[in-house]
């Protein structure tokens, strides 16, 4: 036969367990909320510098801009293998300094452990400014 003390002990234990699960859930939810898509403001003077003749593009934060001032294109510089920042090469290709993945000028994976192409940012013109969403 269980005593009143045993019963209260059980209540405390279950309450503690429920609060722990609830707390973990709150922490989990707040942590999982990270990593949504973000916007990058592209300075208009940089966009104006795009030559559009297939020459060198311009690295802006996490992006690499090519194309023309009226129709810019932006590739993410984040390697699709494990997220290192790839380096633009003089040839127009990209190289990852962490595990040696290579991408061509269109961002397609050509060698190394990366399989997926570099992400292409969605560009949107807002007034005079270009906004990239990655």
């Amino acid at each position, binding site marked *: 036969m269980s005593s009143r003390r045993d019963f209260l002990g059980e209540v405390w234990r279950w309450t503690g367990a429920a609060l722990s699960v609830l707390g973990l859930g709150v922490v989990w939810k707040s*942590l*999982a909320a*990270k*990593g949504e898509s973000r916007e990058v403001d592209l300075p208009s003077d940089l966009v104006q510098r795009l030559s559009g003749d297939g020459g060198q593009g311009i690295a802006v934060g996490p992006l690499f801009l090519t194309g023309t001032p009226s129709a810019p294109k932006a590739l993410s510089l984040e390697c699709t*293998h*494990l*997220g290192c*920042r790839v380096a633009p090469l003089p040839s127009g290709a990209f190289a990852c300094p962490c*595990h*040696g993945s290579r991408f061509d000028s269109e961002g397609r994976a050509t060698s190394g452990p990366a399989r997926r192409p570099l992400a292409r940012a969605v560009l949107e013109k807002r007034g005079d400014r270009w906004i990239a969403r990655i």
Partner: protein
Amino acid sequence: MDREDLTPAAGSPAKPSGSFGRLSSGFLAVSLLSGAALVPHYDPAAALSSLESIASGIPLGAFLRGLHAWSSYGLLLALVVHAVEVARKRTEGQLAAGVWWRAVALLPLLVLALLGGFVLRGDAEARAAADVWRGMTSSIPGAGPPLAALLLGGPGSGLGAAALHHAGTFSILLVILTVEHARVVWPGTRPSVLAALASVGAAGLLTVPLGPPPPGHGVLLGPWPLLGLQGMLVDLPAAAGWIVPLAGVLLLGSLRGAAGPARTAALAALAALAAGWAAFTLRILVLAGH
């Protein structure tokens, strides 16, 4: 086996395998003290410049940083040798199961603390290491992205979370688990002096790198204990980055209670992992042109 088993049976005295264990406690003490001395001068929001200020702006700053780094690497080496010692002398049974598994957890905890310390440099190699750490952790099914956010903060959120875990979470856990395992707070004068002398010698002779890597290197190298992992990730799927270390920890933990062919198989698998780690270290060094 429970705590009672810590008491040796009559006629078969326990054989502590603690010489390198005590040495690792000494290295831990040096690492914690030198780390505490660095904390007031380090700024996670301006990591690289604050480390450059430490190196050139405060008396013995570069030496202090070297002392912290080399004592931490000394701790890792002493811990690995201690694990080999324990496996060779079969003394793992002297610990209760829970204490043994928590002692085994010291190894991955220390590696995480070392990786955190490397990331806190804030230079190109450190940023790349942080990216890989985040990418690798995120590849853990289900728990990956939240775990990465917990360890490193959100993408683009700076080094605050890494600094907190390096100086706080991991260090505190290392101390708690070490004290629980060794059952002493002070490892003794001899191992402490030996660890201090080795760390001082290394800090005086060897510079801890900081800033841009030497020109002409196409691959940025991570911390040297993890070069095997970096090499592995060139050829194996990203999930190998956590599956292989986890397998190593589970194999080491399973030694307690394993006997006969099972123990031999676990030891053989651990030896194969170590050999693979060495081979992949060589792989990444070759790729980096060293």
